[in-house]
């Protein structure tokens, strides 16, 4: 890292001080411009590529979401209305999916293209695009990635982020936890203890590796794969330890406002977006995901029904109206997040230009539990935007959603020929 710790500390404290008012993006943006946490110097994150993905559990009403007319002159549908201000910064896609089935049980393939049940048969398992890229670029930041979401929800919820070994990355579940993770540093005594703990852990890890090496000479043929899994876990942990060592001595950025307490996912949603924006802005991470899952309760928007029950709307107009209310809220908050990023300077460009943002769901038509024809918005990331694009939904010309993910990976500087079920790049 080119800048000194002191310089960084100074900048972050200044940023913290001017961030005293939460929820005021314009102020935040101004502060960042004047005294940018994101340095204009190379290597401190300025202009670095970032990625955010947002997924919900039950999809969006396709009839109210997708426009008819393709190209730049697409009409603003009911659900796209809240995004009108962001029109030039985003593209809407139709016809993209992963070709998987399973209703709720397949929603978790949103960012991977692969069902977890099939993970064992694939070299990279059902790794999701965020974790795939975090493995490559994550070492640059304190957190290789941030996974924000909830444990709850029908059949396990969104379960958006997966590692290569087919393990779900446990989510940070609320603004309070996310805030602590980002801004609350350890006391000096604790820091010293951590340094010591890291050291002991590293030495134990060496010993354990020796034990595993010995075991590998004895185990039966059917056990080899499992032991390999253990070895790769050790390698992964070694990487984690190195990171932890590096960041243990490096202070976290100053807190921009007091620690919030959790209320409920509906009311917390703006705050979660704000914290994710701050995480990007302070270069605490370059990769983040957000699940809008089982904890998003309609009752907090005044609808006394269960979300899942509503999703099977049977074309009942009143039920659909409720769903539109829920979805409009989700899309509206997403729009504000885009605006927030677009007004934040990041080196020569806006933070939105540096960040590829995917928004959508692993569920296509929630009423019939289809995982095809997924609602997909790609925003930011310095693409040519402003269009509604229809991909071939079926037949031989069918384009897998993973092709779009492959484009994103390339944008992030991750060199790979394929990702998930991709057949090539999207463009």
């Amino acid at each position: 890292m080119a800048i000194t710790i002191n310089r960084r500390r100074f900048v972050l404290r200044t940023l913290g001080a001017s961030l005293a008012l939460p929820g005021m993006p314009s102020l935040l943006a101004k502060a960042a411009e004047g005294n940018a946490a994101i340095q204009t110097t190379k290597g401190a994150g300025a202009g670095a590529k970032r990625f955010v993905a947002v997924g919900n559990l039950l999809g969006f009403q396709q009839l109210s979401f997708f426009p008819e007319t393709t190209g730049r002159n697409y009409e603003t549908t009911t659900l796209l209305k809240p995004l009108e201000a962001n029109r030039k910064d985003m593209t809407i896609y139709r016809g993209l999916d992963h070709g998987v089935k399973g209703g709720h049980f397949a929603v978790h393939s949103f960012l991977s293209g692969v069902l977890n049940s099939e993970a064992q048969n694939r070299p990279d398992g059902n790794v999701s695009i965020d974790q795939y890229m975090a493995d490559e670029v994550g070492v640059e930041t304190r957190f290789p990635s941030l996974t924000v979401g909830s444990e709850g929800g029908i059949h396990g919820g969104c379960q958006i982020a997966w590692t290569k070994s087919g393990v779900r990355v446990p989510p940070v579940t609320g603004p309070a936890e996310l805030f602590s993770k980002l801004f609350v540093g350890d006391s000096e005594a604790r820091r010293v203890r951590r340094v010591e703990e890291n050291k002991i852990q590293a030495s134990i890890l060496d010993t354990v590796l020796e034990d595993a090496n010995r075991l590998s000479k004895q185990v039966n043929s059917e056990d080899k794969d499992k032991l390999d899994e253990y070895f790769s876990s050790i390698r992964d942990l070694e990487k984690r330890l190195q990171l932890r060592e590096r960041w243990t001595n490096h202070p976290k950025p100053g807190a921009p406002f007091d620690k919030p307490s959790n209320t409920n996912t509906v009311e917390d949603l703006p705050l979660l977006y704000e914290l994710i924006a701050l995480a990007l802005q302070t270069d605490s991470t370059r990769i983040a995901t957000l699940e809008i899952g089982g904890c998003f309760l309609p009752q907090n928007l005044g609808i006394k029904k269960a979300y899942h029950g509503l999703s099977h709307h049977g074309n009942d107009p009143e039920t659909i109206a409720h769903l539109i209310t829920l979805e409009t809220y989700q899309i509206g908050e997403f729009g504000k997040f885009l605006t927030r990023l677009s007004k934040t300077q990041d080196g020569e460009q806006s933070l939105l230009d540096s960040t590829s943002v995917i928004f959508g769901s692993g569920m296509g038509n929630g009423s019939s539990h289809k995982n095809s024809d997924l609602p997909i918005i790609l925003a930011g990331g310095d693409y040519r935007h402003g269009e509604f694009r229809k991909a071939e939904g079926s037949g031989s010309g069918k384009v897998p959603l993973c092709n779009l993910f492959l484009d994103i990976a390339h944008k992030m500087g991750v060199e790979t020929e394929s990702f998930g079920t991709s057949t090539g790049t999207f463009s």
Partner: protein
Amino acid sequence: MARPYQRCFSRSCFFLVTLMCSLTGNLVSEEPEIVFQFLGKYCLECHDTDIEKADREFETFGLPLKSEMDLVSAKEIIDQITLKEMPPKKADQPGEEERLEVVRALRAGVAAARGKIESTGARTVMRRLSNREYEQTLATLFDRRVDTLGLTADFPKEKTSHHLDTIGKSLVTSGFLLDQYFQSAQRLVESRLGKPEMEPKSWHFTKHFIQYEELSGSHKSAFNYEFLCLYEQPNTDTRQGGYGHIEDFLEGVPVSGIYEIKAKAQAMHRDTHYDASLFKIDFSEPFQLAVIPGDVTKGHIHYPQAIEPILGQSLVPDKEPTWLTFKVWLEVGQTPRFIFPNGPYESRASVMNVNKKYKDEFEGEISSSGVSRAHILKQGKLPHIRIGEIKIEGPLPERAGTREEIAVFGSKGFQPDDALNQLYAFGEKAFRRPLTDDDKALIAKTFGARKKDKATPRQAALDTLKMILCSPSFLYLAEVTEENDTKLGPFDLASRLSYALSSSPPDAELYAAAKSGALNKPEELKKQIERHLSDQNINRFAVDFLEGWLNLRDLGNQPPPRETNRLYYSENHPYSMKKEAQLFFRNLLQSNGPISDFIESDYTFVDKRLAALYQLPEEKELRLKDGFKRVSIKGNRQRGGLLGMAGVLTVSANGVETSPVTRGVWVSENILGVTPPPPPDEVPAIDGDVRGATTIREKLAKHAADKSCAECHRKIDPLGFGLETFDPVGRWRSSYPKPKGDAPAPKVDPSGEFPSGEAYADFHDLKQVLLTSRKDIFAKNLIRKVLSYSTGRNMEPVDEYIIGDILAAVKKDHYGLRTLVKESLASDIFRSR
């Protein structure tokens, strides 16, 4: 690792000989022809190599069976023909004689192939301990509960296979998890063995009981914070006084240990004249007070936290403030919190309603917003628990050092001069086998390195313990044998048995039997199985196995809407639901009762709450404190067997609505062991446009009009239709919820018909059909589940021979569950790697 392979050798020879004998069973010459003719006549029209309907073709299939795939096909054809599910209704049907003949021929073919078909797998891959086994193992090694530490709270949720959490292939390890193992070992070892010596201290609290912000105003004005008040049970949506903490003791206890907590408490206004329905609880029951740990650094002190096992519980007298004493284990930094487990449901709402309904009873000035809580507290009869004084003393000294010190280092506690031997002894327990020289070298190396780093001998030993708890020999059941030998060595067998029946490492007696080599003798193995089954700890098997088999683990994952299911929450129904199934299972296991009772029984186990849910007469006589009781339900057509249990009926629905399809699939998978295929690609997705239809049955009839749907649904749906008389949380019903408008509530039609023509009128008759023609299918499924759970792998086609042998033995013994478990665990499948 030195293993006594030789010892098993003679036994494997014996096995080989038996195998050879079965090879001689030859096919009678006409059997291949019978099968060929039958398939050609009734099956190939759809299942030839061109059409391959449902991905099955039998053109290349025939006797003798040549591959594992053939074996699968043969089994499937036998099942389909026996249950008359194939050929489809509209096609030509074979006569009864023809059916029997081809089934006989196929069975002979399967029998003749025994030993000839090579298994592709049928091996348990080295598996790590599942999260619950891991916690249980640590609790055993340290001889104390560890649930107060929440060691696995941040572990990734376990990946299951058919709901079982012991399948080696599915139990993945990641860098993240490995890191968690380190954190966990660190926390456990340091908090339990690295704590400073401390003389007991005492604390006394008589005032300043500040609680939840919203209560502050009223508590100050009513009694100046001199009481800690509990108004509701913790399990509510709109929190208001469900958790009582001690404001002046937020820092918690200075060191992990046993603490005596005394609280002077009184149950207030249990005889209130306010309408009981405002509180949604049973005022005939004495109020309960329980102690749970809290940690102010882990989240809001008056909200639920990740770690809150109930540490102590007591009934609260009504008459006057009474000292109640709890002896509880608290971890360093934890502060005790009080809860009111059977308290009113949602205090916020009940106070508002009291305020509305009884405001005329209050004297003095009443504000425009109504009677305040303070006002109600001063003059009214709001039911609650009131604590006025709290004393804490501890850590209480334990006789002869702490339990974990003795469990880990031996009866003398840690001895610096003998540290290495003590660590070796612990290593042997942790690895569940004698240590090799290499094991010892690693332990000595770690210990030495830490000492060289200027750690005290004790600290060096503690760090070595952490290493042991992170090494693969501890985390994995490796089950290594000579490559061409497949029988488990005695120590692996001991671990497998012990984890199967007690979810923990072998106890001293089992370990001794492994060490002497006796365990590899079938009679000793049987003796050990019998001993475990008779042990009190067998309860853990009932709990853990049912979590998997019936997927009770997921009970509560799809919560029903609170407004329409108050009792489900206020009375914690999921707890009672699970308990019923566990007691039922345990009873059959202990009494060797017939497994047909799982399908139909004239008794079950209920507590007061379930008795009410089931509308049983015992609802009146049972008291909550009596817990569960076996009750006769003779003549009751609404309950009996697993399918009449609210737990099963809830976990097979989604909390909001029921469906004969999802419940049918549940029964098919978990009771009969048949996983229905997912909808094939060509089937049009069921679109939700069902405005005209009022019941799920009508909706299904609409979908099933499509032939390709009907093919599977005619097999699945009959298993679910009979369960429609139960709502999503297991309550009996005869009609569906009333739709909007003037339309009457549609009646439930619980009748069904199987493809075989077996028809039933209602739930009770459905069970009779299952008993009559599917008892052995169920029995085999249960055998497979027990074997999969205990060996850590899913059963494969070649295993079916031994499963058949087990079934024969179980049948001979009147289908006893104990026999089933014993035979399964004594089988070659269980004893092989």
